[in-house]
């Protein structure tokens, strides 16, 4: 908007409901960008459609608020056209695992250096609280007329089996931890998924802030809530693959952890495995890819004459 403000804030009115977990995510994201020392013009936030999809408008960085479920194709198209950009995708659980599930899987297969924040609130927020693909079977939120009859997808497990090389989970109301995860995701070379547990006080009265915080199960002695959420790192969980040989074992361990739910819900990094990125694989085909990526190739001289050597292009078609 105005020229390079130092902060990542905009003056657009934030129209989320009071108490929405998205506020926490927004702050953590802005904090992470600031602490990484990035400048607004270096960052592109790409979002889908949903309450979460509005995020880019509240961040002073390039913002591409796309179509429902299509944020990953946009993010990948942008990143591959100009790999110098820091591309971050932000979207809802319905967006990413409902209508966009095919792209979710496919992005894992590619391993482009994009960081993906998936706001998991268990509902389709912006369309008034229908069950999202992460809502569990048999659950009925206050927005539903009847119990949910679909099984839930597990975003962490889905990312793991499809090839994401950094897979983590954060919590919207743990600012410092989430900010840190986002920084690590951005720092990771390759495709990162950060699932974020995001309370939606308006429609989801099941996985609420209080529930995550364990306020419904206070310690009878101290009267203090016993949080359901705990941090993997605090239990010494080691997500990092340091040697290709241990990849399968760590993957399976991460999968196993990803299914923990209910009384104990892990957050933190589940898996990290640096591998060649898609960009690097492209560069094996197109040797000058990193120096002159598609968005930065010169196409013509000053008068507009194309630089391409038409004659040599046509050579193989010459018959006379």
């Amino acid at each position, binding site marked *: 908007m105005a020229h390079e403000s130092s902060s990542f804030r905009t003056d657009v009115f934030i129209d989320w409901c009071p108490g929405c977990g998205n506020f926490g995510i927004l702050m953590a994201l802005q904090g992470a960008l600031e602490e990484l020392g990035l400048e607004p013009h*270096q960052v592109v936030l790409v979002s889908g459609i949903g309450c979460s999809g509005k995020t880019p408008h509240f961040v002073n*960085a390039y913002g591409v608020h796309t179509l429902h479920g299509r944020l990953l*194709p946009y993010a990948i198209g942008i990143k591959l056209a100009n790999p110098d950009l820091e591309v971050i995708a932000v979207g809802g659980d319905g967006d990413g695992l409902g209508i966009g599930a095919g792209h979710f899987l496919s992005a894992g297969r590619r391993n482009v250096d994009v960081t993906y924040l998936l706001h998991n609130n268990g509902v389709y927020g912006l369309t008034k609280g229908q069950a999202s693909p992460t809502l569990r079977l048999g659950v009925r939120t206050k927005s539903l007329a009847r119990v949910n009859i679909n099984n839930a997808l597990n975003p962490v497990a889905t990312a793991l089996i499809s090839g994401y090389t950094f897979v983590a989970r954060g919590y919207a109301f743990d600012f410092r931890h989430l900010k840190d995860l986002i920084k690590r995701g951005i720092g990771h070379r390759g495709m990162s998924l950060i699932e974020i547990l995001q309370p939606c006080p308006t429609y989801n009265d099941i996985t609420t802030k209080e529930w995550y915080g364990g306020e419904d199960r206070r310690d009878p002695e101290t009267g203090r809530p016993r949080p359901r959420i705990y941090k993997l790192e605090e239990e010494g969980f080691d997500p990092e693959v340091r040697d290709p040989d241990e990849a399968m074992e760590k993957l399976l361990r991460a999968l196993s952890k990803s299914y923990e739910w209910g009384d104990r819900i892990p957050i933190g990094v589940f898996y990290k495995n640096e591998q060649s990125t898609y960009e690097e694989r492209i560069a094996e085909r197109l040797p000058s890819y990193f120096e002159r990526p598609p968005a930065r190739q010169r196409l013509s001289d000053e008068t507009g004459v194309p630089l391409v050597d038409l004659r040599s*292009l046509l050579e193989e078609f010459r018959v*006379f």
Partner: protein
Amino acid sequence: MAGGPQGSGVDTAAVIFSRACGYGGLHIYGKREYHSNIKGLHSYFHIRVSSREVLANSSSVDLLAAFDSETVVRHFHEVSPRGGLIVDERETQKNIFEIPTLPKEFKDDLKIKIEKLKLGETISDLLKYIEGRGGKVFIVPYMGLLRGIADKLGIDNLLRVMPTLNVLSIGISFSILRYDKGLVERAVRTTFSDRPRIAEMNLLALREAFDYAEKAFPEGLGTSLRVLRPSEERILIQGHQAIALGKIFGGCRVQTYYPITPAGDESWFLEAHEVFKIKGGEGSMLVLQAEDELAAINMANGAALAGARAATSTSGPGFSLMVEGLGWAGNSEVPVVITYYQRGGPSTGLPTRHGQDDLRFSVHAGHGEFARIVLASGDIRECFYDAAMAFNYAERYQVPVIHLVDKALADSYKTYEIFEAEGYRIQRGKILDEVKPGEEYKRFKIGDNAISPRVFLGTLGGVHWYTGDEHNEFGHITEHPRMRDSMVEKRMRKLELIDREIPLEEKINFYGERGAENIVVSWGSPKGAILEALKALNREGHSLGFLQVRMIHPLPWKEIREILRDRDKVIDVEMNYSGQLGGIIREKTGIPMSFFILKYNGRPMTSTEVQEALIEILKGRAPERRVLTYGS
């Protein structure tokens, strides 16, 4: 024409044959036809050779090389009275109703046909029919020839030399046409240049064929192909190749696609040419196979925002999935190019066959209203220039451009004088490389005309936003009624700007007599057949003009109205059921079409059938709608 089962080398035969003709200074026009199947069903190529330019096929065949009995059954009636047929001796005794790959509906028709012609049920009965009409039949002992080749190469297994069958038949063909063997050898060598062993085997086959035919058929076909020495430089090229080259030339640097017939050929060609020479170095194009067409269009949109000239390429089923992404591009003023290869619809329809059914769909695809350009090329040369031009239009007007071509253009071959730059300049429209400190940048600034300066994602000082929602000048969501009106108008007024600025010669072509009484109107691939018919008819004293529309949307309706107004007959020629261009013209100009010549059986129009249909109209004997049916 040569035909045989898919996978038996019909394609390669077409390439070799066409090249050999090209090397001899001849003009060719050729077209492949094949089933949606990998191996075994009937495919054929149909080539016309001439000392003058040829623009389309005609409905008869002078020389038919049949690799199998099915080819004889499907095409024997097309062999012209003074034409010839080359056939394997093993096939001659086959019963035509026992060919397993012939579908029931074909056999039903065949039964009627042979009863009418009073023919028997074997291939040799059909051969007799050809001979009876004055044609020549060349029966070739292919197995014997193959055995000879195998022996010479010291190969036991006959299967290993089987792939030379197509070259054998080319050899026979050129031999009975008395053509220069050296040129054919050169064509074989070029075609197999990356596989020298195969090249040698085929060269041997070629020589064997020539030797055999010279002895066995000393009198030849009767007509012969003479070598010429034209003064111009020439290329032999297919439509999808011309488009791919136009893209490289025009600066496209990201192409996304999901495999689909017939669009896929273009992307695979680009993959093979992803690195190319530019002045002072090397350029490259990123060709991305997406997970589906939804991803393909949206990736291309993203790449375009980042500042690359970006395109995607597809056919009907894929385009149907791109509609949502097209709308986003329209709303966010993204300069993206979609190359749309029409094939026979609806749905998966006829995946490998031809049609022009998607004109209205390309004009109206997407909910809501937004500016787009629909550009339809009529021949392979136009495919090249329009492909490059599409990016200029897209970037100058910040709109999605649909480059609408069709299957008949995509995989027909033609000889052309070599393509030159012809003054083509890259015009990227209004782009700011940086935004000065203190200046406020608004991506969707409402200014004097509908175009706001763009900055690419990543530009210092140019932070802005995009959204599929209605937005204000910064790109933030708005629902404000006045801003809404302004943005709708900003987007839609581009159509007027485009109409005003793009020169007429890039939008329509007119052929024939300016003041002609009767005007043929068409678009896309029928152009070739129409031009040939027109020439013949005007030579016979008829008064015909031909308006080819290239810019379908926004339609240059004022100029078209001038051209069509007060003519005796306006004749719409299209490859669809409902005369779609005719409908658009009537909508925009009020002028109705007097006649329709339509075709929708999946096969391109031939000049013969167009000419016949036009004659009937000119003679006043035709119904308002005439449906053409040539093809197998």
